C-alpha cells in the first residue's frame, strides 16, 4: 500500500459530507411523509369518536352511553392495535368506556401511556343537551410505529444506495482516471536503464502532461550528463592511448635490435609494463563506460555476430599461447550496447586464454536455451575454486598465486556489463569437472 492512497484520501474527503447529506435527507423525508400519515390515522380515530358520540344519550340529570354490544365489538376490533374509548360528562365525570384513559386539557390529539402501553388519543365533542360531553378514542401505536419504520427505511434506502454507488464509482473512477499514470509507470518500468529517450507525450491525457514533461526534462538532463561523460571518456581514451601506442612502438623497435643482455631484460620489462598499462587503461575505460548513465544506445545485437566479428583477434591471442580456441555459435539476439557486449565477451575470452594451460582448449558458445539468449566461454585450465567464485567478481581481486599479469578487473567489468543488460552471470566448472565456464544468460525478448 502506498503511504498516501489517493482513493483513501478522496474517501476521507467525501465520506463525512455524504453521510451528513444522507442524514439530513432522511430526516426531511421522514418527517414530510410521517405527518400526513399520522393525520390520516388521527382522522380515522376522530371518525370513530364521532360515531360513539352519536350514541351518547341525555335525560334531565344523567348522561349515559347507549352503545349496542355489536357496535362496541366492531369499534374495538382492529387488525393490529388495541382500541380504547371513554366518554366524559361536561363536568369531566366518567360516563362509560375504559376508565382512567388519560385526559388532556390542551389538545384534541395527543400521545399518552395507558395500561403500560404507548397510545394515541383523539377527542371529539358529543352534544349532551345544551352542554357538551367528550368522547376519547385511543389506540396503541403498533400501526404507527410500523409505518414510521417503513417511512424511515424508504427515505434512508435510496440515499444509502446512492452513497454506495458513489463510493463504488469513486473507487473505479480513480482507477480509471489514474490509468494513464499506471501505463506511464509501466512504460518507465519496462525501459532499460540505458534508454534515455523522451517519453511520448502524445498519448498522455491533459492532466499528466506536466508530469511527462517534467520527466522528459529530467531524462534530457541525464542524457546530456551521460553524453558529456561519454565525451570525457573518449577524450581520456585518446589522451592515454596515443602515448601508450608510441611507447609500445619504441620498446618493440628497441627489442628488434641486437642489445646487450642486461639492457634487453630491462626493455622487456618496460614492454611488459606498457602492455599491462594499455590493457588496464582499456579496462578502466570499459568500466567507466559500463556505469549506468554513461551507456550508449541500446539496439538489436546478435551475440553470434559479435563473436564472429572478434574471432580473428581472439584466435591470434590464442595462437600466441598455443591454446586451441573453438566456437559453437548459434543465433543469440539480445537488446543492448554492442560495444559493451563485445567488451564483456572479449574479457571472458582473454581470461580463458590467459589462464589456460599451454595446449589447452577454450570454447566460445552462443545460442538460445529455453528461449533465452546466452553466451559462454569455457576453458579446461585450473578453474576457480568454489569459495573464490564470488570474490573474483570484485574489482582488482586476483586469486592468490595466480600467474600472469592481470589487473583483476576483467570479471568485474563483465559483471557490470551483464548487470546493465539484466543478464545473469554464472561461474561454474567446465565439462568433466575441469576448468571454468562463465555463462551470461540474457532476459527474454
Amino acid at each position, binding site marked *: 500500500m502506498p503511504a498516501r492512497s489517493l482513493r483513501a484520501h478522496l474517501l476521507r474527503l467525501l465520506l463525512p459530507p455524504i453521510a451528513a447529506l444522507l442524514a439530513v435527507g432522511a430526516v426531511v423525508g421522514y418527517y414530510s411523509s410521517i405527518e400526513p400519515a399520522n393525520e390520516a390515522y388521527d382522522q380515522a380515530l376522530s371518525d370513530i369518536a364521532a360515531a360513539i358520540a352519536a350514541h351518547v344519550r341525555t335525560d334531565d340529570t344523567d348522561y349515559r352511553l347507549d352503545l349496542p354490544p355489536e357496535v362496541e365489538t366492531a369499534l374495538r376490533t382492529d387488525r393490529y392495535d388495541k382500541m380504547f374509548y371513554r366518554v366524559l360528562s361536561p363536568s369531566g365525570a366518567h360516563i362509560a368506556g375504559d376508565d382512567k384513559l388519560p385526559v388532556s386539557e390542551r389538545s384534541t390529539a395527543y400521545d399518552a401511556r395507558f395500561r403500560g402501553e404507548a397510545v394515541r388519543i383523539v377527542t371529539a365533542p358529543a352534544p349532551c343537551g345544551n352542554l357538551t360531553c367528550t368522547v376519547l378514542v385511543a389506540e396503541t401505536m403498533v400501526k404507527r410505529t410500523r409505518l414510521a419504520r417503513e417511512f424511515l427505511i424508504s427515505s434512508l434506502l435510496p440515499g444509502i444506495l446512492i452513497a454506495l454507488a458513489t463510493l463504488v464509482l469513486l473507487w473505479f473512477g480513480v482507477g480509471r482516471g489514474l490509468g494513464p499514470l499506471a501505463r506511464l509507470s509501466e512504460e518507465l518500468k519496462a525501459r532499460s536503464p540505458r534508454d534515455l529517450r523522451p517519453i511520448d507525450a502524445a498519448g498522455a491525457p491533459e492532466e499528466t502532461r506536466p508530469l511527462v514533461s517534467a520527466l522528459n526534462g529530467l531524462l534530457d538532463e541525464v542524457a546530456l550528463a551521460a553524453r558529456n561523460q561519454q565525451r570525457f571518456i*573518449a577524450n581520456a581514451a*585518446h*589522451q592515454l592511448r*596515443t602515448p601508450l*601506442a608510441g611507447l609500445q612502438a619504441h620498446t*618493440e*623497435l628497441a627489442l628488434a635490435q641486437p642489445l646487450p643482455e642486461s639492457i634487453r631484460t630491462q626493455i622487456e620489462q618496460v614492454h611488459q609494463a606498457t602492455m599491462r598499462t594499455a590493457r588496464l587503461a582499456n579496462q578502466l575505460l570499459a568500466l567507466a563506460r559500463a556505469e549506468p548513465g554513461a551507456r550508449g544506445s541500446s539496439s538489436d545485437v546478435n551475440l553470434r555476430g559479435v563473436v564472429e566479428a572478434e574471432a580473428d583477434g581472439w584466435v591470434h591471442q590464442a595462437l600466441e599461447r598455443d591454446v586451441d580456441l*573453438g566456437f*559453437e555459435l548459434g543465433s543469440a539476439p539480445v537488446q543492448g550496447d554492442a560495444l559493451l557486449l563485445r567488451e564483456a565477451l572479449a574479457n571472458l575470452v582473454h581470461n580463458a586464454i590467459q589462464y589456460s594451460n599451454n595446449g589447452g582448449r577454450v*570454447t566460445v558458445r552462443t545460442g538460445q536455451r529455453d528461449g533465452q539468449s546466452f553466451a559462454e566461454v569455457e576453458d579446461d585450465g585450473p578453474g576457480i575454486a568454489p569459495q573464490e567464485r564470488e570474490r573474483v567478481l570484485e574489482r582488482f581481486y586476483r586469486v592468490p598465486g595466480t600467474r600472469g599479469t592481470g589487473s583483476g578487473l576483467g570479471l568485474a567489468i563483465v559483471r557490470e556489463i551483464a548487470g546493465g543488460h539484466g543478464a545473469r552471470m554464472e561461474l561454474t566448472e567446465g565439462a568433466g569437472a575441469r576448468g571454468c565456464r562463465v555463462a551470461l544468460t540474457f532476459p527474454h525478448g
Partner: protein
Amino acid sequence: MRLLIVEDDAPLASGLSRILEAEGHAVDVTERGEDAVLAASQEHFDLVILDIGLPRMDGYEVLRRLRAAEKPIPVLVLTARDAVEDRVRGLDLGADDYMVKPFAMPELTARVRALLRRSQAHGGPRIVHGPLALDTVARRAFLRNEPLELAAREWAVLEVLLAKVEKIVSKEAIIQAVAGWGEDLSPNAIEVYVSRLRSKLEPAGIKIRTVRGFGYMLEEFKPAPH
C-alpha cells in the same frame, strides 16, 4: 612500397615509420590532415596510415577528401576511440581497415602487408604467398617454382583463403564462394578439400589452421628458421 603516415603524436609517428622502414617501405610522415590531402593529390602512395584524432582537419575529413579524389589508395585508420559509431563511420567513409590504439606492432605490420597485398592483387594476375604463386589468368599454381597440381575446387578454396590471410574464413563463406548455383556442398566436403590442400602446401611451410567450429585461417608465411 611507399607509405604515408598521418599522425600528430611525434613519438608514435617516428616509431611507426621506423618499424615500417625496417619492413622495407619508403615512409613519409605528416602531422597535419591538410598536408596529407595535398601530398596524396600530388604524389603516389600505396597506403595511407591515418590517425583520426588530428588537430584542425580530422581524420574523417581527410578520409572523405581522399575518397572524393577517386584515387583508390588503401587507408588504414588508427584511432584512440573504439566506439562502434566511430568504427562504422570510418568504414562507411571508405577506410580499408581499422586499428584501435594501442596496438602490437606485429599486428600493424601484418595488416599493412595484407592491405598492400590486397591492393596489388586487384587487377594483378599473380598472387604470391611465400613460396606459393598463383597465376590467376593461366590458372596455374607454382610451389617453390615447381608446377603444383590443384583440382578446380581446391583452387577455389585456396583463392578464398589467400584473399584473407591471417583472417578466419568461415566454412559457410567458403561454401558460398566455391559452390556453383544450385549445388549443395556440405561442410564435410570443404574439410576434404582443405586437408588435400594441407598435404600439398604444408611441406613448403604454408599452414592452414582449423578454427574449431568456425572455419579456417591461412597463416602468414614465416620462413622456417635455419
